[in-house]
């Protein structure tokens, strides 16, 4: 066996030496050019009438023009946000009402059966109330946002976004395709990490992996949308308020892109030095998707998937949170010990211990950060029945929230460490504990730095 493999090895070397002798450096170019020439001559024989300019090309002149490209991008994104926020309010309130009503009935039922107090606590006040809030808060915006995003994707608009961003990424030392993987990150960072496989150079692929987390994913959109609509628009109401909320969300997306570019730039000047490789970005033709099919598929599949993930994790989390909040060590509950421990740190960042605890406990999935936070606040004795969203805002305000708390929680959500699934995927793709850890560390440091800075500045100027 051994001699066989040595023999193989030697003759292999001989062959490779032979190859080197007859090969030359330009051979790839020759091969490619021969193939292209053949394709061209084949097409001349079998394809008739090549129209000069398609509708797609004309549209692309507008969508990817240097003047109109970015404004159109912002307008489309803003429209999607506007419709989401404006449309989600009413159904959210209706769902909250429904759950409040059902909770009353359940409590009545438990009393009629003389169920013990703790059972009512765990099942109704913990499990039912917790998941009820999650569904009322998260389902309506997702059911509106995802179908609209899917329509943009299926019309073929996302590659145009990539095209517009391409120049920026080149300048930041990244691969143009990084804009595509970034766009995918708006859906799900874990999936986007897989999609970085389309980037040939390992250096640029690593840049794309390390910075992918800076665009908000499915799990973080609800957090951003909820906090923006609750806290960021005091003094505006109705359509103007919705408009401002949408503008703020765009601001967050742009901030995420700026951070992505800055981190790429810094890394490509330091740890991942190199010059970006060339490539051709193909713009697929615009295609009219099957409209209702897309809408149905997106709202059922995506919204349902995210919601299921939220509820599956939120349901046990709500029980756990309730239990932790009701088991006392000394005169303080376990949950409060944990929260109190984190509180000074949270305060320094303009947030509080609850929020920090929610982000840490929410590592498995970003979807459950808000649910955990709500549950932790609700377990604070101040029981809150689910009625409408303004009640939710009241809970936050009762806990000492200001606009700074909301802003910094949004910033932290945008910039902090990737979720567990994404980290697992990063490890699978890179097979490197070091780079996986870096992909955790870089965002975390940035999130802490940015929130600390805003908190310090806001306090120094006496804005809060």
């Amino acid at each position, binding site marked *: 066996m051994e001699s066989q493999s040595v023999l193989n090895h030697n003759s292999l070397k001989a062959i490779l030496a032979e190859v080197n002798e007859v090969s030359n450096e330009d051979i790839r170019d020759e091969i490619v050019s021969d193939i292209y020439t053949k394709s061209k001559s084949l097409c001349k024989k*079998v394809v*008739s009438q090549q129209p000069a300019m398609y509708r797609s090309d004309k549209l692309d002149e507008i969508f990817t023009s240097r003047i109109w490209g970015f404004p159109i991008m912002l307008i489309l994104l803003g429209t999607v946000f506007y419709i989401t926020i404006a449309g989600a309010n009413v159904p959210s309130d209706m769902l909250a009402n429904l759950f409040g009503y059902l909770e009353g009935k359940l409590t009545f039922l438990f009393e009629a059966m003389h169920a013990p107090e703790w059972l009512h606590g765990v099942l109704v006040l913990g499990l039912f109330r917790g998941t009820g809030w999650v569904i009322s808060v998260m389902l309506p915006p997702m059911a509106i946002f995802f179908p609209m995003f899917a329509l943009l994707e299926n019309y*073929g608009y996302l590659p145009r976004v990539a095209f517009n961003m391409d120049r920026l990424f080149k300048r930041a030392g990244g691969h143009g395709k990084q804009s595509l993987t970034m766009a995918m990150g708006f859906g799900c960072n874990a999936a986007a990490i897989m999609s970085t496989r389309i980037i040939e150079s390992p250096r640029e*692929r690593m840049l794309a992996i390390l910075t992918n987390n800076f665009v908000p994913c499915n799990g973080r959109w609800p957090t951003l949308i909820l906090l923006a609509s609750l806290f960021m628009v005091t003094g505006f109401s109705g359509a103007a308020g919705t408009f401002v909320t949408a503008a703020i969300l765009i601001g967050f997306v742009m901030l995420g892109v700026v951070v992505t570019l800055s981190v790429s730039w810094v890394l490509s000047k330091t740890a991942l030095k190199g010059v970006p490789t060339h490539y051709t970005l*193909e713009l697929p033709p615009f295609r009219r998707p099957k409209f209702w099919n897309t809408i149905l598929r997106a709202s059922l599949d995506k919204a349902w998937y995210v919601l299921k993930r939220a509820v599956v994790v939120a349901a046990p989390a709500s029980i756990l949170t309730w239990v932790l909040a009701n088991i006392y060590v000394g005169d303080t509950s376990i949950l409060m010990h944990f929260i109190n421990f984190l509180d000074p740190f949270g305060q320094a960042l303009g947030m509080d211990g609850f929020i920090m605890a929610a982000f840490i406990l929410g590592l498995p999935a970003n979807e459950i950060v808000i649910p955990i936070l709500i549950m932790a606040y609700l377990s604070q004795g101040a029981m809150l029945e689910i009625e409408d969203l303004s009640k939710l805002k009241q809970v936050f305000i009762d806990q000492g929230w200001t606009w700074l708390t909301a802003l910094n929680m949004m910033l932290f959500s945008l910039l902090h460490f990737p979720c567990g699934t994404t980290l697992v995927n990063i490890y699978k793709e890179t*097979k490197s504990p070091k780079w996986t850890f870096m992909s955790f560390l870089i965002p975390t440091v940035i999130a802490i730095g940015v929130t600390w800075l805003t908190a310090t500045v806001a306090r120094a100027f006496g804005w809060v």
Partner: protein
Amino acid sequence: MRVNRIALAGNPNTGKSTLFNTLTGLKQHTGNWPGKTVVHAEGSFEHKGEQYVLVDLPGTYSLFSNSADEEVARDHIVFDQPDATIVVLDATSLERNLNLALQVLEMTNNVIICINLIDEAEKKGIRIDERRLARELGVPVVKISARNKKGINRLLDTLSQLVHGQIVTTPYRMKYSKEIEEAITKIESKLEGYFDEKYPSRWIALRLLDGDEELILKLQNHKNNKQHEVRTNGVPVSVKS
């Protein structure tokens, strides 16, 4: 009972995944942008009482294994040797798409060229002479519209005939410059008896000339080569193939 393994290759955004879903009834997410399928998906279907397993390869523009997804697609065709490879081409940009088809034809004999999005092309006034193309390439050519389920039956019948040997293909092999051809002949003769005959020796020679030395190692131990690691600039990137 025999199960036929079929691979779906093609450029990104040619409707490969749509065809995959149409044939298998699976609901893999389709999207109008490159990079949607980076790992291959598998599904099965039945036609005329026979079982088929369909593998949806990542959409790529070439098979030079520049990137991880190209490598996944290439390795599947060369090492796993599916009973047939369907190359899906976009009728509206045939010229660019043919580049990939020509590369697949260098790697395997059992190829069906499937021209998708044919109704979209017709709307644009593009006419494609598929019989002429079939003669030129030496393999069956079928026009379809996966989205509107046109031509699917013809594709399946052709597939069935191909896997049963009722269609004999004479795939067109790329001809290169005299210099390259001489080099290929030289290397190919050296390789004789070195690798299993089932591997395409002309293609291997060409890849070696192109500096793809890793391929030769892969050929040697591809059986225990389910997972391999590439290290460049200290940045490891690993790929499941």
